């Protein structure tokens, strides 16, 4: 091949079709929903139990209760001590992983397919018969308190915690750190964990997702065997009123003496998962800060060299989660970086993305969809999302079509409606003695300085 022909971008080949794998839906008499997908390429299975037991259910006094209860599941069961439980799981190559978020607690494991019966038995034992021995609960509370201490001294933790607190009105769960505070975690004990399990770990409202080298009939039979005795009605689910703290501009510096970088967060209250503009917003966010070639990254990183990277995210939840732009930049360029970020955001909202950008973002989002569905764990997580947000079972069937059908007008409209530059709070975790003056020069509302905890 010679020079000239190299200059031409190679044409795409024949498109291979991709469909989200068929999901088999079922339900036990006790209300537990079952979703299974057979993927037989490798002899592995992921089982993911989704519980309606997120931190968003809790008021501030009990902040961290869902996370701590999840952590304490490793403390043992009615039949096994914590050590025996870990040994039983690991002997079959299965690590139990507990993830607690604002909207759910998920308890999952992966194992080789021929060990699934044992693994499901252990999963059920952990959920249906958890023992919370005081000794283990004390240990886990101590570890959580130490983790909170770590977060309070970590540059990323400091900036993110402050940003969430300054985004929401006091009392909104999303304004506090997910794992709670020293005050709310302090009183946690075994009774609190057991009480939370009784209240929220219930078959109704939960779902068990099983993906891998196993068929729907086997899944049904295994779930019936191990989870059939589970009883209880639906847990509570209060609405979240995600009111903002302010609708005014402002800059808050959280002071860390001699910080070599500034951790920057810019944003305001964003959207709920149920927003009708979900797909348009994904397109808009990709253009702004959701890909390497986004406006923010090309400006702050590839043009100015201010940062290793910058991104923008709509964290969609049952209530309106935050919209947040985040980056870390050199101390000396902090105000310049904030200025560039604000001007990219403002320009995008004022003028909207271009046709070409919308086109590229649609192609990107539709194209990467199958890339994110290679593993049994990835597929299970996608299906869990449907259970958590009450989305229909066939939701992913036309997912790519819905991305591709976002129009330029819809993207412009979503940007205007969901990103409001005049309401943005800027949080800078960094050395106030260096950055305060230059930030004041930006005239982005009042600049306040706080001590880092």
């Amino acid at each position, binding site marked *: 091949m010679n020079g000239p022909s190299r200059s031409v971008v190679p044409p*795409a080949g024949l498109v291979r079709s991709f469909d989200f794998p068929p999901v088999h839906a079922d339900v036990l008499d006790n209300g537990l929903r079952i979703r299974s997908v057979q993927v037989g390429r490798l002899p592995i299975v992921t089982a993911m139990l989704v519980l309606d037991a997120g931190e968003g259910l809790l008021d501030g006094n009990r902040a961290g209760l869902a996370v701590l209860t999840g952590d304490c599941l490793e403390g043992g069961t009615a039949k096994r001590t914590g050590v025996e439980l870990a040994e039983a799981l*690991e002997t079959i190559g299965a*690590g139990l992983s507990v993830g607690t978020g604002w909207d759910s607690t998920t308890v999952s494991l992966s194992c080789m397919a021929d060990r699934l019966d044992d693994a499901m038995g252990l999963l059920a034992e952990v959920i249906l018969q958890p023992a919370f021995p005081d000794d283990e609960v004390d240990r886990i509370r101590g570890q959580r308190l130490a983790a909170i*201490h770590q977060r309070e001294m970590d540059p990323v933790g400091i900036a993110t915690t402050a940003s969430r607190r300054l985004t929401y009105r006091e009392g909104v769960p999303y304004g506090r750190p997910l794992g709670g505070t020293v005050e709310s975690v302090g009183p946690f004990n075994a009774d609190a964990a057991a009480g939370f399990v009784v209240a929220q770990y219930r078959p109704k409202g939960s779902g068990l997702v099983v993906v891998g080298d196993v068929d729907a009939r086997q899944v049904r039979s295994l779930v019936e065997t191990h989870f059939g005795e589970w009883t209880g009605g639906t847990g509570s689910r209060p609405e979240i009123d995600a009111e903002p703290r302010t609708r005014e501009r402002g800059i808050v510096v959280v002071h860390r003496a001699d910080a070599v970088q500034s951790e920057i967060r810019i944003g305001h209250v964003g959207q709920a998962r149920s927003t009708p503009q979900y797909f348009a917003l994904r397109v808009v966010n990709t253009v702004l800060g959701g890909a390497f070639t986004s406006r923010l990254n090309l400006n702050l*990183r590839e043009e100015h*060299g*201010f940062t290793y990277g910058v991104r923008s995210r709509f964290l969609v939840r049952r209530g309106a989660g935050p919209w947040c732009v985040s980056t870390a930049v050199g101390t000396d360029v902090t105000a310049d970086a904030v200025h560039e970020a604000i001007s990219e955001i403002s320009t995008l909202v004022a003028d909207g993305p271009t046709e070409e950008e919308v086109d590229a973002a649609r192609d990107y989002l539709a194209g990467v969809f199958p890339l994110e569905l290679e593993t049994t764990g990835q597929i299970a997580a996608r299906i869990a999302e449907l259970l958590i947000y009450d989305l229909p079972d066939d939701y992913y069937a036309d997912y790519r079509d819905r991305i591709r059908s976002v129009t330029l007008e819809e993207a412009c409209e979503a940007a205007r409606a969901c990103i409001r530059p005049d309401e943005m709070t800027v949080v800078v975790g960094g050395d106030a003695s260096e950055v305060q003056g230059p930030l004041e020069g930006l005239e982005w509302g009042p*600049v306040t300085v706080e*001590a880092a905890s």
Partner: protein
Amino acid sequence: MLSIPIERFTLDNGLRVNLSHDATTPVVAVNLWYGVGSRNEREGKTGFAHLFEHMMFQGSEHVPKNRHFELIERAGGSLNATTWFDRTNYFETVPSHHLELALWLESDRMGWMLPAMTQEKLDNQRDVVMNEKRQRYDNQPYGDWDEWIQAMVFPESHPYHHTVIGSMADIEAATLEDVAEFFQTYYVPNNAVLTVCGDFGRDEALDLIQRHFGEIARGEEIPAIPGDQNLDPIIGATVRERVEADVPLPRVLMAYRIPPYTDPGFYAADIAGSVLGTGRASRLYRSLVRERRVAKDVTSFVLPLTSGAGMLLAWATGFPEGDPCEIEDALAAEMEGLSSVTDQEIERAVALTETALVRQIEQVGQRADLVSMFDQLFDDPARLNGELERLRAVTPADVSAFVEGFLGAENRAVLTYVPVTKNTPTPSAP
């Protein structure tokens, strides 16, 4: 036993090519390992292999700056690269019908990178890399641990003495001539492995690879790694450093020289690392976190390096008022006590590794990376399929012998972080 299909070819210019077919999902991974990493850097040039990796994304003769990212993202693909001690890897996963795009982009920068290099791009990426260093090392609690540990475990003459990110003074001093020389020396087909894994047509892929990579000229022989790779198998003493720093909690790190990945003795070390630190039934978690409660978390793993020695690392983070000496004693006791390892513990370690490995190869990108690794390090890509068997063959006696030989006080680097409270007042708002 895994049975990943792998076909291997070598082009006339020396490029090693592996094809591994799997049509589960209509995606394909393109993965390149270049046999160059931080161990190839000479004095005064530390961090250059990584800076160079950044420059590989700044365009090539037929691909303008940012275009590589634009084209792959537009195609619905993902991409990145990483630099490590012994290698630098570049990878894309794309929908299958964009295989040629990924091959064209990778071949253009392998063959035609230099015409696109400018001082402006170099200045920009130096700034980006310096911000990467600040973000990931300087502004991170404990972020400088690898700098300390590598310097303690490997002598100054050894290529693992310095870190991958390198020194900022060296990064500042990098020139376009350095870029050209590095490219011509190391970024040659005879120093690279290309693996294509996923849903593709075999003959078509071979044809495309030949078409895009075939005309790139073979380079010179790769120069010897600078410094002295010969090492005593063990450090020969306990070396320790105590760092008072702005960290939230005390932390003790322990590091040991272990046999290199290319030595059969590595597998006992790997199993030892898992028995110590993988899972909640592992020895360190059970002893330090669950029972003695001197640590809030523990970690242990091995680094499979190839120049003279690898490393086994463990660390434990204490509680606010905790005594680091107590953590150190507990860690040391578990290391030495591991000579009593049981069959059940090895069985668990192998079972966990099996699940982890199968989960890893569920993704074509990860699978391609493993194939490239086994080719580059062992000249045998299919070695991937036997890796579990090599771990399964490890006996308690093997682990005991490893513990006796390597995990004692004569081969130990201890790095202790002690929190110091910075008492600096908040400047008052005017």
